């Protein structure tokens, strides 16, 4: 057997103490465990059925009350109380309503580092792989077992090596790169697989862009995605190689009802937009929201009549920075609705739900029918700049044509 390993093989070998390769099933020591208000209540049920007495290492567990932030029904409020009570009993840190999205909070905490294994009861936990670690989404039973044992079983995934080359043109964002890649690989194209981003253009990307690429890897069904900190191991075996030439990209939009349903934004130009949603773990960070303001101001500083602009910072930290620099106050003065940090309107569990017949332009990662809580609304996914352009013009518009 060759000695080279993919990053997934390296990390999962190290965390399991077994010299393992893709396809092997290993039991790994987990570094960080994340629970959300959506999955933790069911995990508490499993924990009790498992006869769990205590949590193995509560200092490595964090719960975020992010999907129902704030709760809108007695039932979701009760979920929160249940999670808080369990956390108090076991000494687990709860990031309460308004603190932010679970994996965003782990990133901001500065605790996770390259080489770590992160499991979270949310599919977009994968986002943390931008730090060069292995992060993956798990279910409620896994979350319970990880709390009891500090471990998880994992089948080591094969890896797709994605090489980023070229320099992107002005007006092309990380979201455009990510959507183009999802379209190229396909909605299930990376099922059971990990993605390693490599190449000179990958090394040059800032962290916030890396987060977007790892986040959207879930939309090709990847188990994990990462920007490794070191060079590829010479003998490592990859399932396949994909390359993305950034210089060939232009702004895109994902049409309803799938993230892989991608087209050049010009092909959808003119489609009326009734709601613009800026937020989520894909597009609710500092640089995203600043970009939205920049594009709107460059184009005259007004939101079109009949467009509802909703802005949800991914975390309180994001909210704090954007309040301090004036971004959120300026957006609010244009009539934007600024909502509590967290998942917001992303999956219809909290925040603003679109009305029947609305077209929503969103910085999120998913546009399945009904995703935002109303199956009679249609969701388009695009970059923050394209969302801002839609807010200004009232229809889908190539952001490169704005404010010229």
């Amino acid at each position, binding site marked *: 057997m060759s000695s080279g390993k993919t990053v997934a093989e390296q990390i999962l070998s190290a965390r399991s103490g*077994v010299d393992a390769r893709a396809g092997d099933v*290993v039991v790994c020591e987990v570094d960080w465990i994340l629970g959300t208000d959506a999955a933790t209540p069911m995990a508490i049920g499993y924990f009790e059925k498992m006869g769990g007495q205590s949590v193995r290492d509560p200092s490595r567990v964090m719960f975020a009350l992010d999907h129902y932030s704030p709760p809108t029904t007695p039932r979701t409020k009760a979920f929160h109380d249940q999670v808080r009570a369990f956390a108090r009993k076991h000494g687990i840190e709860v990031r309460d309503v308004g603190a932010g999205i679970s994996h965003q909070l782990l990133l901001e905490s500065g605790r996770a580092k390259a080489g770590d294994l992160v499991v979270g009861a949310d599919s977009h936990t994968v986002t943390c792989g931008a730090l060069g670690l292995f992060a993956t989404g798990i279910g409620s039973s*896994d979350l319970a077992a990880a709390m009891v044992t500090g471990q998880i079983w994992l089948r080591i995934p094969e890896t797709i090596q994605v090489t980023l080359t070229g320099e992107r043109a002005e007006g092309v964002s990380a979201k455009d790169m990510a959507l183009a890649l999802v379209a190229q690989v396909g909605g*299930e194209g990376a099922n059971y697989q990990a993605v390693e981003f490599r190449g000179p253009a990958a090394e040059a990307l800032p962290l916030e862009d890396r987060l977007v690429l790892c986040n959207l890897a879930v939309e090709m069904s990847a188990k994990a995605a990462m920007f490794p900190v070191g060079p590829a191991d010479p003998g490592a075996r990859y399932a396949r190689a994909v390359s993305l030439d950034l210089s060939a990209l232009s702004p895109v939009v994902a049409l309803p009802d799938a993230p892989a349903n991608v087209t050049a934004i010009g092909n959808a130009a003119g489609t009326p937009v009734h709601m613009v949603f800026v937020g989520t773990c894909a597009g609710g960070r500092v640089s995203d929201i600043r970009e939205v303001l920049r594009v709107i101001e460059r184009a005259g500083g007004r939101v079109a009549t009949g467009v509802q602009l909703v802005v949800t910072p991914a975390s309180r930290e994001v909210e704090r920075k954007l309040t301090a620099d004036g971004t959120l106050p300026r957006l609010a003065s244009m009539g934007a609705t600024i909502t509590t940090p967290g998942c917001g309107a992303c999956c219809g569990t909290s925040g603003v739900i679109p009305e029947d017949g609305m077209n929503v332009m969103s910085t999120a990662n998913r546009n399945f029918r009904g995703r935002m809580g109303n199956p009679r609304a249609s969701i388009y996914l695009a970059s923050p700049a394209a969302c801002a352009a839609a807010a200004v013009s009232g229809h889908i518009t190539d952001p490169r044509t704005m404010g010229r």
Partner: protein
Amino acid sequence: MEVRLEGRARKFGDDINTDYIISSTRKKETLDEAELKRYLMETLDPDFAASVRPGDLLVAGKNFGCGSAMEVAATVILAAGIQAVLAQSFSRTFYRNAINNGLVALEFDTSTIREGDRLSIELTETMLTVGDLTTCVRSSVATRLPEPLLGILECGGLVGYLKQRGGFRTP
């Protein structure tokens, strides 16, 4: 260690998502599998749930269980009395949820299996053998189901496994 099953094939196609398995409108009303099992696969076949006999085996094409990651999609199949799902491939989250809840999920070339065929399944750490007692075709494929996967299935899921063993047995 091994798992042996026998049952009647209930055949479905490709891309059976978790919403087809159990519709989200039903999940809004309750998350109790004993209740939800009456609506298993109702979007595809309203009569299906009533026709399930304990021990039946689901047989499907590729990408079974795509869509949302809700564990109830796996537990409702078990609650209906179905012991295993054989599919060309699974979505990753459904596969984990199935194993963790003790639903035997197996990747296998299902193209020749027909609705109603009687199947026998033998699963060891390294080999899966499916015998079609109706067509008398028997085939084996190599699998990699080492500990703890086989152990979890034998114990009926993670709950039983951790209760019995007190932890993952590290190899």
